[in-house]
């Protein structure tokens, strides 16, 4: 059963009881919350995702619950819980959905050590994936959000999960997090995009989440092999330019952006090395999403950047 097949009441009840199990391949997450608005956001963003029976094993049990006492009425706050334990400081209750998203990212980054986990967006076309590792502010998520509106499959906008044995990358095809000016830029580029209402005043500024494309969610169980490592950077109105990036430096960027590279020791070094081996490594500087989409179209078509 898909989330979209649940009535809003059923979804809200499962959420209140902690009986909403979302299939986020390769994981299952159990969600619980008493924040009423969360059911709407989950329905909007995760409609195509599969709901698992409430009695199956969940890799992560997460909860966002309203803080007790006067806080329930005066500037209500909510807190994220992992396996029943409070994690992180409480935040305004209206940030409940971004909190779930950030919390799920943290769960994967902090616990899924069967993978080499890299802070990177991953998109795929014709069986070849682009891995875009980059620190916040590089335009990575904006670029990812734009390209998945133009035929690229979304694996992830935040977490590349590298299977060190197969060399394949897994993603969860979860909603793409956009902030501040990127929200308007994406809607200008793709007016049909479905996004959550913007949530102002978060630690990242104003945040809105973009619904993942249906086709990406339908293929969420298919990992992909990387063919390119692209380090994006953004400046307003900059022309789109690909340039070659040294593989050694790409390796170091991937290692720096990995959450658990150090933990895997020599195995992680060798796996990262094989990933770099198989990829063309590029920098991409851009200003407008239209230009970026055209440049990536040429890249996918085999034109030298």
């Amino acid at each position, binding site marked *: 059963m898909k989330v979209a097949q649940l009535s809003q009441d059923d979804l809200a009840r499962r959420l209140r009881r902690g009986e909403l199990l979302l299939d986020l391949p390769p994981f299952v997450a159990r969600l619980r919350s008493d924040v009423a608005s969360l059911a709407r956001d989950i329905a909007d963003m995760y409609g195509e995702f599969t709901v698992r029976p409430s009695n199956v094993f969940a890799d992560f049990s997460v909860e966002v619950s309203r803080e007790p006492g006067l806080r329930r009425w005066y500037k209500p706050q909510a807190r994220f819980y992992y396996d029943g334990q409070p994690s992180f400081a409480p935040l305004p209750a209206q940030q409940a959905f971004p909190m779930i998203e950030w919390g799920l990212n943290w769960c994967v980054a902090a616990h899924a050590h069967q993978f080499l986990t890299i802070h990177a967006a991953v998109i795929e076309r014709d069986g070849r994936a682009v891995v875009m590792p980059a620190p916040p502010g590089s335009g990575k998520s904006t670029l990812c959000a734009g390209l998945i509106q133009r035929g690229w499959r979304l694996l992830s906008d935040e977490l590349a999960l590298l299977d060190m044995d197969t060399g394949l990358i897994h993603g969860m095809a979860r909603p793409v997090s956009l902030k501040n000016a990127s929200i308007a830029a994406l809607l200008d580029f793709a007016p049909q995009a479905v996004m959550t209402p913007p949530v102002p005043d978060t630690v990242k500024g104003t945040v809105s989440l973009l619904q993942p494309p249906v086709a990406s969610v339908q293929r969420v169980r298919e990992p992909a092999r990387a063919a390119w490592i692209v380090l994006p950077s953004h400046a307003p109105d900059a022309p789109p330019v690909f340039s070659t990036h*040294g593989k*050694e430096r790409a*390796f170091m960027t991937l*290692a720096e952006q990995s959450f658990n590279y150090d933990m895997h*020791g*020599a195995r992680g*070094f*060798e796996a990262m*090395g094989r990933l*770099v081996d198989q990829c063309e490594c590029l920098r991409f500087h851009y200003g407008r999403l239209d230009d970026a989409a055209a440049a990536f179209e040429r890249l996918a078509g085999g034109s030298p950047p």
Partner: protein
Amino acid sequence: MNTWSCAGRERFLVRSWSGEEGVVYDTLSGDTHLLEPLALELLQRLQAAAPRSARALLDDLAELLEDGGSESSLAAIEQGLESMRRAGLVVASAA
């Protein structure tokens, strides 16, 4: 004058795609280093051969250096070795 040696012949995993720079994984410390071309060349020579002085390394590398091995190249080699010593990749001992 110091004699320089690799901190462990089997200790380091090296990958270089360009043949110039390289990434080096230290299996003992768990650190990964990005080495500039000269440092990579020095490390690989010290991995493959007996300990030697900076001047002996300069002589080894003379044919690769644009200036054929001047005093400024010697200074660059000493700087590269010192930097690798601080990173735990090479060891200096008094000759």
